[in-house]
């Protein structure tokens, strides 16, 4: 059954999930339209590479389409997608050394044509962090998860998470010192 784009645009997410579970492609497209920016930004902060981030995000949504019948609680779409995205990133970084591109900023800059300079600088600074530290920082600052939530999510001890975030924050503060003053002035 086909639904109008207006109906889908006004439908709550739980309805879209329900329709997607029945194989409704339009409902899934609407879900994607609502969630893509969040997932793509998350992947960009994780990978620091726009092209790779978009490719991984596409894979996340393809996996979501394939396994959406397993999502029994429609209200859990956000955490479900987030788990899928992080797992996708972890699988990718295990297959490929995530520090391989670290320090190669000149090449990376050419991929950031549509990105703000803040995003470029942030991604460049994130690239200097170790993969575990970087993931914790992204989950803490981008996803605004608490230390305890990150510990549960990554199945690492709370102490390790706190240490990673402390170390990562310090490093980012040094790398992004130029942004500290204007932001404080703006307040």
């Amino acid at each position: 059954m086909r639904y109008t784009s207006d109906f889908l645009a006004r439908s709550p997410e739980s309805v879209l999930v329900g329709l997607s579970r029945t194989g409704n492609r339009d409902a899934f497209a609407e879900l994607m339209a609502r969630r893509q920016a969040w997932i793509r930004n998350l992947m960009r902060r994780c990978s620091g590479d726009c092209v790779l981030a978009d490719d991984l995000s596409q894979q996340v949504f393809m996996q979501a389409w394939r396994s959406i019948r397993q999502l029994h609680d429609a209200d859990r779409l956000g955490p479900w997608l987030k788990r899928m995205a992080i797992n996708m990133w972890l699988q990718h970084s295990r297959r490929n050394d995530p520090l391989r591109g670290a320090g190669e900023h000149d090449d990376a800059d050419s991929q950031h044509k549509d990105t703000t300079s803040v995003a470029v600088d942030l991604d460049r600074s994130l690239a200097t962090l170790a993969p575990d530290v970087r993931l914790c920082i992204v989950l803490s600052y981008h996803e605004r998860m608490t230390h305890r939530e990150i510990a549960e999510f990554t199945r690492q001890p709370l102490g390790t998470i706190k240490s990673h975030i402390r170390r990562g924050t310090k490093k980012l503060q040094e790398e992004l010192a130029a942004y500290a003053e204007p932001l404080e002035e703006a307040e």
Partner: protein
Amino acid sequence: MTTSHDLNLQKLFTQAEQDFRGDSFAEDVLKRIDRERRKTLLVWSVLIVLALAGLALLASPVFTAIGMATQLLPVSLVEIETEWLRLLLSPINSVAATIALGALGIHKFFRWILR
């Protein structure tokens, strides 16, 4: 800046977020989904055709084997002349009964060993 949760960093993360409205991301995903669906359909079609071809080729020998087995299974192991005794022992005096009892015995034996 402090080394705990840094508000300036938090602002930078927020500023770095992009909207992405108007690009072809969703269409690209849907195209990939359609392509994958077509590929799956093609693989299943080929498998079904191969299975049907295999069935057509093997149908004759399979039916012959089934026919032979059907004829063999009720054959008595020991010829008994007395009618009532032959009828009484018929459930165990056949190739089928021997196979069934053998399978049951092996099953019990393995369960006893693995206990």
